């Protein structure tokens, strides 16, 4: 597993009256195979997740993945870290499923025909066989999120960060995506409101007001979150 290290990492955003702290200085090391981040909306859990691949840069302190600084060595970090967003419609940037997977494969498969063939294999591996020429608009919510996840996994990341990946899905698709995430060989950092899914992680952090207020086993963390929610 990779080592994700936050060292006094904080995030502040400018406001009309000065600055607002989104994340108070955080020192933390994540080495477990799966780590859940749970907490109320606006608590700062997505910020902690977005720091991992430089989508958010720390105002002070550092964040490293396997010793690579997410700001100074951002490109190398993004090759190691895949990110799954809440709304796959924003994540899928190409018109068809096959083309979107092919976009992820452009570095590893320079030849167009090989790339499209590899994209079909990736789709088949994730239960989306024959979807290559389907418009991403025509897919169901669950299919879109599976496609977004397949696009991330196609790049061969060491770490997958998923920011509320099941929030927009119905129960069946939520289970399908959740099961796939929990079965990944990659290290998983999961932001979620699904406490059942969080409870399946090896470690869980409860976030409130930009601070980690509990860090421990998932079962304990879920109990703690229920007590403060």
């Amino acid at each position, binding site marked *: 597993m990779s080592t994700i290290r936050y060292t006094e990492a904080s995030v502040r955003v400018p406001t009309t009256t000065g600055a607002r702290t989104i994340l108070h200085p955080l020192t933390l090391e994540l080495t477990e195979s799966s780590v859940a981040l749970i907490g109320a909306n606006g608590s700062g859990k997505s910020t902690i997740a977005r720091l991992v691949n430089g989508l958010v840069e720390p105002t002070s302190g550092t964040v490293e993945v396997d010793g690579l600084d997410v700001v100074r060595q951002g490109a190398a970090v993004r090759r190691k870290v895949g990110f799954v967003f809440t709304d796959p419609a924003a994540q899928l940037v190409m018109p068809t499923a096959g083309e979107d997977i092919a*976009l992820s494969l452009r570095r590893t498969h320079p030849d167009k025909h090989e790339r499209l063939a590899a994209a079909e294999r990736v789709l088949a591996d994730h239960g989306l066989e024959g979807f290559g020429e389907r418009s991403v608009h025509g897919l169901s919510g669950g299919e879109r999120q599976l496609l977004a996840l397949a696009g991330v996994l196609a790049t061969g990341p060491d770490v997958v960060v998923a920011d509320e990946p099941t929030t927009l899905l119905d129960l069946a698709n939520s289970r399908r995506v959740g099961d796939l995430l929990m079965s990944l060989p990659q290290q998983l950092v999961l932001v979620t409101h699904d406490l059942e899914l969080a409870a399946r992680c090896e470690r869980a952090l409860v976030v409130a007001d930009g601070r980690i207020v509990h860090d421990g086993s998932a079962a304990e963390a879920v109990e703690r979150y229920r007590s403060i929610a």
Partner: protein
Amino acid sequence: MTSHASALLGAYVPGRSWLHRLPAGAKLLGLFAAGLVTMLWRGPAASVAVLVVAVAVFTSTGASWRLTLRGLRGLAITLALLAAFHAWQNGPGRAVEIVGDLLALILLATALTVTTPVQDLIDAIVLGLRPLERLGLRTEPIALAFSLMIRAIPSTLLIAEETRDAAIARGLQRDPRARLTPLVIRVVRRARETGDALHARGIGDD
């Protein structure tokens, strides 16, 4: 995505028409040439002639007219306003010319996108721009921007439909602020989300 939002400048629809078989570069050049013709061949009769050709070309692709016409409904207000303005300012002949040219180019562009996978369009653009690489131009970001533009059209139309529905649900269908303000905010937000997604996927890191 509602069907009519995705129909305009729609996604690729596999088929075996002559336009499907034509190379993407030739189709792009054809669209460019059509644009030139509409600029250089003036007058309402010329516009009607180009529109007839565009209708014939689009019909030959086998794409759904029903879905395309539903998609065009979103542009009907713009076209009607344009026609009214030009009829008032420059006479009905000019109105026919402007609207006819626009409709013809929209149909031809739709014929291009429904018969050509975006990857083929990107490859054709990269090939066309390749001579400029000697001057230090990076062609891949330009090609990607082109495909993102095509992708953004149905997404933006969907947001416009949702915003309109929300305004109607609140009884504010006649208030342009209730329709335009959330539309602009959501389109900008979607653009930022797409930027984040591209960033997260390492696009631009190469």
